[in-house]
C-alpha cells in the first residue's frame, strides 16, 4: 500500500504543479506530506498565484481557491482518468478570463475523460460538443429539451 500511495502522490503532485501553471498562466503549487509514516500522514497544499508570495490557502480569493481545487482535480484525472466525471457549476466564482482558460483545458481533457458539466457560464457552454437544455415548463416537473449537437469548429486542436 504505502509504495503505491507514494507513487500516486508523486505523480499527482507533478501534475498538480504543471496544471496549476497552465490554469493560472504562471505561479506555482505543490503538495507535501505532513509528519508521520506514509500510512497515516496528511497532505499540505501551498498555492502561489503569479507574482504573489506563498501564503496560507485560506488567504486566497474565492476564484483563486476554486481554480486551485480545479487544478488538483485535473491533476488526479491525468494520473487516473475515471470512466466519466460530473461537475456541477465548479467554475461559478471564476472571472471571464479564468472561465475561458478552464473551459479550454476541459475541452482538451475531454478527449481522455467523458465530462458531464452543469454550467451557467458562457465560456463553458461555447466549448460544449453537446448541449442539453433542462426546463420546467410544467412547474415542478423537469423535462429535457431536444439536444443541439453543435458543430464545433476544429478549434479543439488549436486550444
Amino acid at each position, binding site marked *: 500500500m504505502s509504495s*503505491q*500511495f507514494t*507513487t*500516486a*502522490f508523486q505523480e499527482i503532485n507533478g501534475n498538480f504543479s504543471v496544471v496549476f501553471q497552465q490554469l493560472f498562466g504562471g505561479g506555482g503549487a505543490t503538495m507535501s506530506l*505532513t509528519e508521520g509514516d506514509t500510512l*497515516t*500522514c*496528511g*497532505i*499540505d*497544499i501551498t498555492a502561489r498565484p503569479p507574482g504573489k508570495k506563498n501564503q496560507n*490557502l485560506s488567504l486566497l480569493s474565492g476564484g483563486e*481557491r*476554486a481554480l486551485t*481545487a480545479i487544478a*488538483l*482535480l485535473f491533476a*488526479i*484525472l491525468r*494520473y*487516473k*482518468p475515471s*470512466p*466519466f*466525471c*460530473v*461537475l*456541477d*457549476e*465548479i467554475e*461559478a466564482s471564476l472571472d471571464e478570463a479564468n472561465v475561458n482558460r478552464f473551459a479550454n483545458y476541459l*475541452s482538451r481533457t*475531454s*478527449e481522455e475523460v*467523458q*465530462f*458531464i*458539466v*452543469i*454550467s451557467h457560464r458562457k465560456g*463553458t*457552454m461555447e*466549448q*460544449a*460538443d*453537446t*448541449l*442539453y*437544455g*433542462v*426546463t*420546467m415548463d*410544467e*412547474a*415542478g*416537473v*423537469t423535462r*429535457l429539451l431536444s439536444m443541439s*449537437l453543435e458543430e464545433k469548429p476544429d478549434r479543439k486542436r488549436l486550444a
Partner: protein
Amino acid sequence: MCLKRVDIQGFKSFGDRIKLELHSGLSVVVGPNGSGKSNISDAISWCLGEQRASSLRGSRMEDVIFAGSDKRKAVGMAEVTLTLDNTAKLFSLPYGEIAVTRRLYRSGESEYLINKVPCRLKDIQALFMDTGLGRGAYSLIGQGKVDEILSSRPEERRHIIEEAA
C-alpha cells in the same frame, strides 16, 4: 465514452420518465434555477450507490421520490438506470454493456439490478470501487462543493490520493 445513457423516473423533480442520451466529448447541461440540473447529478450519484441522504440534499432517503407539484400527486417509486459501455473492460463484468438500476419505494424497500438481474448494493459498490466513482469519489463534484478538495484537513486529503492509487 463510458456513460451512454441515463434513465430517470420518479426521482426528485422527474415526475415524467426522462432519457438522457450522451455523446462523446464535452456535454454541458444548462437551464434556469430550480429546473432540475443538479437533480440529474444527484440521480447519477444515487445510482452509483450513494447511501447518505444528506449528500443528496435530503433528510431521509424518501426525499428523493417525486413528491408531486401543484398539479400532480406524489408517486410511489424512484428509479434511475445508468447504461455504461464496457467494451474497454473498465468494469470487472463479462458484458460489453452494463445497465445499473436502483429503485426505492415509499415503503422504504430498495432494489438494485445489474443488466435487469437483481443484486445487492454491495455488488454495485464493488463494481465502482477504485475507479474514481466509488465512495469518496473525486469525479463527482456537487454544486458548491469544489472547495472541499482544498478545505478538508490534511489527513482527510489523503483519501483522494488513496482512491486514485
